[in-house]
């Protein structure tokens, strides 16, 4: 009996310690001094790896999601002869919700898991320890550029996702189903607000970026340095960041548009 209670205590302490280590990493990454001469090339390399290389999947999914949204919206709205409204429907759905959320989910799967695996393998092969031996801070050299690269590139990817999605909605609605092009844009124009919709979508996307990349680098840095540990850490990255994004999205939506 007392042993059971002890196990609960141990797991609670473990998760607390994990949260503490994660906060320490985030703190040292954010506070840590950034040297322009050495930091910028590392940052650019990581933006390339996590941002530029994720562009294809983000653009293609954005296009198809916009097209599907346009098609579904058309099928419902045509009954009320309000098919011009697919413009605002597609744009608002993408800018407010799908753009930030789906980009974050794709980013977690495409770049976050890679980050975790890379850092985890560095830990398993004791590269992080050897960096420390050479008096190079692995947090500064390895973790910080990846974190900032993720935080920078995800909002950029989300804007591309939304605009390509709107273009997809345009393709389906106007080019295929024959909604009037002028009405499509002007109804969308009067429904979408810059601050309210685009601005809040960007804020969401930045929040998701911080959460997803934080989870990714932490899971990698904190991985058990075995092959099994790395595989578990990679899975945890995808699962935890997806759950965190979806949960936070509800909270942010309630705060912003509630």
């Amino acid at each position, binding site marked *: 009996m007392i042993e059971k209670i002890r196990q609960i205590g141990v797991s609670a302490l473990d998760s607390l310690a994990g949260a503490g280590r994660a906060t320490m990493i985030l703190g040292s990454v954010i506070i840590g001094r950034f040297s322009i001469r050495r930091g910028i090339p590392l940052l650019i390399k990581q933006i*390339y790896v996590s*941002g530029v290389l994720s562009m294809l999947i983000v653009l293609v999914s954005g296009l198809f999601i916009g097209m599907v949204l346009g098609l579904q919206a058309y099928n419902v709205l045509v009954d009320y002869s309000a098919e011009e409204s697919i413009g605002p429907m597609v744009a608002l759905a993408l800018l407010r919700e799908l753009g930030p959320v789906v980009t974050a989910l794709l980013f977690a799967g495409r770049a976050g898991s890679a980050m975790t695996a890379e850092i985890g393998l560095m830990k398993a092969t004791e590269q992080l320890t050897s960096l420390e031996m050479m008096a190079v801070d692995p947090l500064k050299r390895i973790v910080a550029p990846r974190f900032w690269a993720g935080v920078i590139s995800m909002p950029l990817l989300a804007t591309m996702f939304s*605009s390509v999605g709107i273009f997809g909605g345009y393709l389906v609605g106007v080019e295929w189903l024959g909604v009037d092009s002028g009405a499509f*844009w002007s109804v969308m*124009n*009067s429904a*979408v*607000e*810059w601050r309210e919709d*685009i601005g809040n979508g960007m804020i969401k996307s930045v929040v998701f970026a911080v959460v997803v990349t934080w989870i990714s680098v932490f899971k990698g840095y904190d991985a058990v340095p075995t092959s099994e540990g790395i595989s578990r850490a990679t899975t945890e990255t995808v699962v935890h960041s997806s759950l965190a994004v979806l949960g936070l999205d509800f909270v942010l939506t309630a705060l912003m548009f509630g």
Partner: protein
Amino acid sequence: MQKRKRFDQRKIEILVGFFVLASFLALLMLSLKVATSELGTSTSSYTLFAKFDNIGGLKVRAPIKVGGVVIGRVASIELDPNDWVPVVEMRLDADYNRFTDSTSASILTSGLLGEQYIGLQPGFEDEESEFLADGDRIPDTKSALVLEDLIGQFLYSQKD
């Protein structure tokens, strides 16, 4: 032979530059084409005011139309503190600044359930009529038709 692709720093920097540029283009497209842009409105505008007894569901940025053509937007809606009547500020394109004082403004609804807009009916022009200057008030206005009131009146008239 397995050949590893190696990107040198320069190539990576160029690609990242494209990436950032593409996303800024996307943001530009979103803000100019998708959202209501304050930038797009022409700098020269012509402002008229109108008092309505009831503005119904009229909103700021609602279109102002003459014969179905949009020539401006509602800039603001305020309540006159002296007589408790809503005052609507209409910002029109400066190309259409030749409205006479017999012009009438009415709040109309596009379709049965559509959004509300202001329809201007240009007045006649003779030697006695004057053109409305920038900042003038349109004297002749018709309030919004409130569907609920109409239904209420209809039901009331049915009772007799």
